[in-house]
């Protein structure tokens, strides 16, 4: 497929890998923010292509994984209400909440349906006028504009039985929270490509400026990721951290202005609760007052027990990058893709799922023992 196959060429990958090896002189740690990057890195064996002294650590960029248990409990409680259809992306179904999951609620009679787009949920609302259709809106800046556009469409078409539980989150604020925590020392960040299609490169400028951490915005094919690693190694080795766009076929400095306009029209920035991290200021999107009638939380207030986290699961540490999945005692034993304990093993972008699926090379551990 065009714009995909060309970026998987093994000769070009070798060229980049050689260049990275030539540039790299010391141990550095890079974080790939995005779960999609974690999967591509393991799937294409990118860790084996770069020198062991370049460590790649996965970050919080999996929207399913970072959804707080309390928010998941809310979605499950909404699904159990009579006359309600809850719609969600497929990955959310099996994520364990405090006592149940959306899938379990469905098995017990709740009407929970998987959709590919918020647009499908609107169609479902139109086809089921006697029901209330709630869309569980998770995602980062990539997805939030699509949900905003869908809400605007529902308003235009006067679809009154469509509502959104907005759990959307913003990426630069959580990067700031990770860097401020001081829990993990990073030399560079592989920034999320499709988030950046929307927000551009400007919002990352504070990272090299205030923290001295290098940034490269990356696409999702193996050559894109290798190119980003190359840009980061060059910045780190040269002592010149900045923000480079290594995905220039998709990302511009200014991003997609129209998408941001629609997002700003419908949502306002507020605090958000991240699994493993807690409340991060200004990192979430709530529906604005004018769009209150689409707000599932306003329409159906539910009261919940305090959330209970899955016992022994270290998803929170994995999300913050302080632990790798294979350091979790449950990994591959009590926790597998068939019987996941935490969301990082459920989601197709979760780090635990990626490590489990593609096997875990000992490179990163070797790095740990060296530092």
């Amino acid at each position, binding site marked *: 497929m065009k714009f995909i196959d060309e970026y998987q060429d093994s000769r070009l990958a070798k*060229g980049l890998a050689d260049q990275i090896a030539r540039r790299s002189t010391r141990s550095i740690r890079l974080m790939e923010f995005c779960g999609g990057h974690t999967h591509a890195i393991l799937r294409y064996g990118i860790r084996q292509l770069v020198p062991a002294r370049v460590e790649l650590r996965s970050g919080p960029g999996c929207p399913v994984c970072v959804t707080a248990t309390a928010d998941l409990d809310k979605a499950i409680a909404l699904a159990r209400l009579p006359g309600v259809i809850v719609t969600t992306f497929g990955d959310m179904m099996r994520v364990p909440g405090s006592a149940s999951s959306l899938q379990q609620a469905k098995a017990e009679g709740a009407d929970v349906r998987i959709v590919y787009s918020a647009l499908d949920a609107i169609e479902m609302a139109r086809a089921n006028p006697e029901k209330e259709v709630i869309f569980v809106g998770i995602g980062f800046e990539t997805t939030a504009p699509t949900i905003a556009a869908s809400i605007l469409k529902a308003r235009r078409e006067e679809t009154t039985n469509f509502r959104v539980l907005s759990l959307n989150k913003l990426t630069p604020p959580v990067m700031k929270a990770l860097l401020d925590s001081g829990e993990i020392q990073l030399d560079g960040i592989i920034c999320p490509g499709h988030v950046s299609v929307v927000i551009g490169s400007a919002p990352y400028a504070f990272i090299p400026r205030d923290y001295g951490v290098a940034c490269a915005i990356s696409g999702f094919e193996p050559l894109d990721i290798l190119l980003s690693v190359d840009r980061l190694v060059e910045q780190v080795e040269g002592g010149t951290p900045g923000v480079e766009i290594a995905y220039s076929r998709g990302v511009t400095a200014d991003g997609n202005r129209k998408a941001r306009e629609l997002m700003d029209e419908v949502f306002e920035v507020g605090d958000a609760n991240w699994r493993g991290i807690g409340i991060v200021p200004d990192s979430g999107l709530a529906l604005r007052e004018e769009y209150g009638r689409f707000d599932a939380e306003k329409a159906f207030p539910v009261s919940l027990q305090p959330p209970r986290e899955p016992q022994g699961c270290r998803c929170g540490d994995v999300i913050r990058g302080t632990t790798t999945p294979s350091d979790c005692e449950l990994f591959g034993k009590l926790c597998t893709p068939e019987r996941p304990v935490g969301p990082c093993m459920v989601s197709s972008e979760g780090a635990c799922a990626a490590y489990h699926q593609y096997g875990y090379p000992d490179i990163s551990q070797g790095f740990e023992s060296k530092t």
Partner: protein
Amino acid sequence: MCLAVPVRIVSIAGDEAETEIAGVRRRVSIALTPEAKVGDYVLLHTGYAIGVVDEAEAEETLRLLQEIADLSEVH
């Protein structure tokens, strides 16, 4: 979650486009990319085009990667 695939626009009607990739056709909203034209590749994410692929930049990147590979074979 943030997966987005490049698909080619075949036709446009209002803020919807018919797209094609590897023989698969799909209707996509271009409400977020009003500048998209027939023949453009757009990045499709959850039913919406979220950006237009810059073909000149794509070629430039590949040219750069070729150069790096050529150089590394000389080394």
